[in-house]
């Protein structure tokens, strides 16, 4: 554990952090612009060129807003919950490889913060810790709608985590490694979307449910629950939840890219560029979904998770296992 390694790690951590913090306003801008055009509007256009600085302006506005804490709220937990949401999203990104090795000052620097041999478990674990941020936020507000939103999200995330995990297991069966860098390394000739198309579909659906995005955004269904778990949140604490939601979209997209779409692999362009292109396409897909589909009912959501996705992922796993066993 030499000094160079520590500096290298610190720089990479800062890059990833900065990337997320800069990327989220861009995604929000893209979302508003894209949905605007899909709904025959033009979206933000006043602040900066093409309205690019709109999100920054909104952020500054949130920063200066009054920070309201409900009088009966559990103060410590109320503060802790949004922080937990953001931290878990950031931490999950630490194992995602976003490029090939590069050589800086004669050192081979792999472009991920940490290549642990349990990377997939790490991502699943941290995203499952992300539930706490939402559940606790809902509970600590000491208010009806947030509590209902929090309970909904905990049930939803526990249900969809299962199918998500199992869909990844079928890829792990093929690669024999839990390291994301290792999985990317094995996709030199064929992306795993080809043999594992069903696993990808299941993973993506569960990912949308895990990030509480439309059409699975039941925890914050505004027609039923005001704003769900963050009804009582204002100012920067609300901004943190906002940040966490988009950072979580990045996590799901980044994992999907690494596991099913060859990670940073691609012709002609440098690896990091390919990673960013794929990431943008995924985020566009998230936005597209939101503009297209109406929200599910809660019983439909749970039934879909338990009665369709879970059996489908198990079936996919069984078939994969048989094929892997037969072909060696």
């Amino acid at each position, binding site marked *: *554990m030499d000094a160079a390694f520590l500096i290298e790690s610190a720089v990479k951590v800062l890059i990833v952090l900065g990337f997320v913090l800069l990327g989220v306003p861009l995604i929000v801008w893209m979302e508003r612009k894209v949905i605007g055009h899909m709904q025959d509007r033009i979206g933000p256009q006043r602040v900066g060129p093409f309205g690019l600085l709109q999100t920054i302006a909104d952020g500054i506005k949130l920063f200066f807003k009054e920070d309201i804490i409900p009088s009966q709220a*559990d103060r410590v*937990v109320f503060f802790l919950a949004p922080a937990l949401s953001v931290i878990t999203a950031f931490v999950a990104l630490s194992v995602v490889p976003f490029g090939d090795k590069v050589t800086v000052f004669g050192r081979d620097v792999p472009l991920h913060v940490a290549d*642990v*041999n*349990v990377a997939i*478990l*790490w991502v*699943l*674990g*941290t995203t*499952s*810790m992300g*539930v*706490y941020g939402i*559940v*606790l936020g809902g*509970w600590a507000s000491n208010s009806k709608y947030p*509590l209902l939103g*929090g*309970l909904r999200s*905990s*049930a939803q*995330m*526990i249900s969809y*985590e299962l199918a998500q995990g199992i869909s990844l297991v079928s890829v792990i069966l093929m690669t*024999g*490694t*839990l390291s994301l860098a290792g999985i990317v390394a094995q996709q030199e000739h064929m992306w795993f979307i080809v043999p594992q198309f069903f696993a990808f579909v299941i993973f993506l659906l569960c990912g949308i449910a895990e990030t509480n995005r439309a059409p699975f955004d039941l925890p914050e269904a505004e027609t039923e629950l005001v704003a769900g778990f963050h009804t009582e949140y204002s100012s920067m604490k609300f901004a943190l939840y906002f940040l966490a939601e988009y950072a979580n979209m990045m996590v799901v997209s980044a994992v999907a890219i690494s596991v099913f779409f060859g990670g940073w692999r691609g012709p002609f362009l440098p690896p990091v560029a390919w990673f960013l292109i794929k990431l943008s396409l995924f985020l566009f897909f998230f936005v597209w979904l939101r503009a297209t589909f109406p929200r599910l009912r809660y019983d439909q959501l749970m039934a879909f998770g338990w009665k369709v996705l879970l059996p489908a992922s198990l079936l996919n796993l069984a078939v994969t296992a048989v094929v892997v066993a037969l072909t060696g």
Partner: protein
Amino acid sequence: MGEAILFTLFSLSAVAFALGMVFRRNAVHCALHLVGVLLSLSGMFVLLHAQFIAAIQILVYAGAIMVLFLFVVMLLNVKGETPLLTPGAAKGFGFFFAFIAFVELLWIVVSQGGTEGEPAPLQALPPNFGSPAEIGRILYTTWLFPFEVTSILLMIAVVGAVVLAKRKFA
């Protein structure tokens, strides 16, 4: 050196969180303190070269089991107990027996489980010690039968939980 610092940090936080868990009134706070203990222990598992177990600890214990706890606590909306501790002589007995148990455990640790001579030195570890691949290899060879039994146990638990939850009470 780094290991010693991290060990101190994790052990202190684990014990502090554990104390908080036992003596907090609010059940949600208790559950959160237990999550703190679990995360500290996960850190210690990494120090002990058990990466897979550490990841599973976060994924299964902190991420699934404790969320379930929290879910039930919120669902039942249990009020804090008054008084907090069991009243009367039972409380005294409780602390007394816990103390005796601690002294016994301490004696076992200090006396090396009653064995004579110097404790065995720390063994050098193979490079893939604690890795998922190695865990999987042992699990599906040496421990295959217990593993299968565990899967049946989980099945029984699922059925039991569903039956209990579905049953209509008078």
